[in-house]
């Protein structure tokens, strides 16, 4: 009776299936950082690039003389004459020009530390600022930011954005419900190439569950590298030499 009951149970009726086993794959640890050499030709090219980069850095270091040029200062007729002379001399003897610049900057220094004149300048700057703000309010809020604080006009900012939009390949597997903002601070050279870059929320990269952030940050850095030299204005280097790009993928991925 027991045997009959057991035989009538459905699970007793099924034969085991003959399946080939899953073959394991063994992971072998190899060095994270490659120790394989460069191809001879590539090594030469890299050395050349390195040397060029060094040269560019030394050439591009912003001269202190330039810093002391005051954009607000109204050029006096005497200055204009001096400048004309300078230009003539520049062609013949560049060393003399340096002297002239140094003298001019020392003169400006004295001027800055004259308290009476500073007060006058500040009063003037207050008025100027107020006037600028008044004018800007007539246009748009963003113009205030662009022309006064950011130092880029709307069209300059648009040109830069359009350039980076084209270079930024968004990683398509990002989790759209997470914070997908990467802020990168750049120090630019006068020609718009990148001297150094820094991810502002770098600590987030190594946090558990934030693996996607590293991928996103890398894509942003890649976009900057592909795009450089960045489309920055040809003048006013001091204003835009430090630039912060906020890459935000949320808007695009959420649609």
């Amino acid at each position, binding site marked *: 009776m027991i045997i009959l009951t057991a035989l009538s*149970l*459905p*699970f007793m*009726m*099924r034969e*085991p*299936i003959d*399946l*080939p086993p899953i*073959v*394991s*794959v*063994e*992971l*072998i*640890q*190899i060095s*994270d*950082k*490659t120790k*394989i050499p*460069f*191809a001879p*030709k*590539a090594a030469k*090219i890299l050395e050349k690039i390195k040397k060029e980069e060094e040269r560019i850095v030394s050439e591009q270091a912003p001269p202190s003389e330039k810093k002391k040029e005051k954009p607000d200062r109204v050029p006096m007729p005497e200055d204009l004459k001096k400048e004309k002379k300078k230009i003539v001399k520049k062609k013949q003897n560049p060393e003399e020009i340096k002297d002239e610049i140094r003298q001019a900057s020392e003169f400006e220094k004295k001027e800055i530390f004259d308290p009476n004149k*500073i*007060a006058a300048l*500040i009063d003037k700057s207050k008025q100027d600022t107020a006037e600028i703000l008044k004018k800007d309010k007539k246009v748009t809020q963003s113009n205030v930011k662009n022309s006064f*604080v*950011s*130092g*880029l006009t709307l069209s300059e900012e648009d040109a830069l*954005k359009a350039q*980076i*939009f084209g*270079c*930024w*390949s*968004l*990683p*398509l*597997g*990002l*989790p759209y419900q997470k914070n997908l903002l990467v802020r990168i*601070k750049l120090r630019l050279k006068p020609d718009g190439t990148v001297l150094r870059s820094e991810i502002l929320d770098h600590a987030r990269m190594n946090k558990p569950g934030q*693996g*996607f*952030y590293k*991928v996103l940050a890398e894509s942003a850095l890649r*976009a900057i590298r592909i795009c450089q030299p960045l489309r920055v204005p040809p003048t006013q280097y*001091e204003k*835009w030499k*430090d*630039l*912060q*790009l*906020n890459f935000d*993928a949320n808007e*695009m991925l959420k649609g």
Partner: protein
Amino acid sequence: MKKILFLIFYLFIFNNSVMAVIEVDITRGNLDPLPIAISPLHLESGSQDIKQGDKTIKNVGEKISQLIETNLRRSGLFNPLKKESFVQNPDIAHVKPRFEDWKLIKAQALVTGKVIVKEDKLRTEFRLWDVVAAKEIVALAFSTRPDNWRRVAHIISDKIYKRLTGEEGYFDSRIIYVSEAGLKTQRIKKLAIMDQDGANVKYLTLGNELVLTPRFSPKNQLVTYLSYFRNLPRVYLLDIETGVQEVVGDFPGMTFAPRFSPDGKKIIMSFAKDGNSDIYTMDLDSRVVEKITDHTSIDTSPSYSPDGKYISFNSDRSGLQQIYVMRSDGSNVKRITFGKGIYGTPVWSPRGDLIAFTRMHNGKFYIGVMRTDGSGERLLTENYYQEAPSWSPNGRVLIFYRETKSDSDGKGFSAKLWSIDLTGYNERLIETETDGSDPSWSSLMSK
């Protein structure tokens, strides 16, 4: 004195505002697949050929790189570049790449590597390079049996996918499905298993019993499915490693629509008796059965959330079949779909953020996704007849099956497996030897 201090303070503030760092918001980018160059893996000298069945594989390195390329292209996230445009040869594996050459063809990532087959061992080494940053970002090596080269290619594809997208891949996984053959009226249905790309098909049953709705355990190589025994549908459990199969519970009626709990310790299913169907769970160790829903309507297609706290299911308790969510103990039942037509086969994403479903409306079938509260419904694909979505292990791709119309004799009928990603644009047919239905995706084998 006060005046001077004020002046210094003002100068400081004024200067700061003028010299503030310019911030530019980048809110748009390129959504094209990432251009990647996959250099054929270099076959080291002294390597042996691989014999696989009747075939002999001479250059396994090339085969592995071709499979990686296919995997990445099918994901829709990568654009593998044409090999004809490559300037450097596969022997690049022995040196650092000349990044300038790869930048020229617009590659943003590069895969190089080498293989050697010796003494019945296949050793594969691969490196992934960020071409723009000119640096190596992944370096790994694997060793296995030579005829297991496809799995090596899938594992490498997963490593590349994870490093470049930030989420787990899904290539080293398998799909269990119902293989179908014959006329619609006389279908022979077998349980079959294959790699996610359709290769290595194995048939698990002979076709003398009807099989339906196979489902993988998320934790191990167990499969649960529905099979008929003496004209009574029963839920079965199959261990793929040992081949042993058994019936789940001795219910005095019909059991169907089985699925595993996220920890793989329970099976949740429907049990029908006297025209009523409710949801039950059974603990696989203790065999204790628990009734989860108790309603006069038909409650079926249960699916756990990945944290095991909630269950989605479909029920006709409101008149038409709709999707509901409740706590795993059966309390707090909430209806989450209110659209026109009927909704069914809800499946919770392994990421926990979405529920996939089938919707029927105006004589058409749709596969869609929505948030777990029912909001944000998106219909990904529309067809004459399609249903039974199943998630890839990373929650990015859905596999389902689609049937075609047939004439009154059952001719012209076919059932095929398809996949679609969350964007709704990357829809692909999965090639199978026979027709197929009811697919279920396994978790990653190498996890």
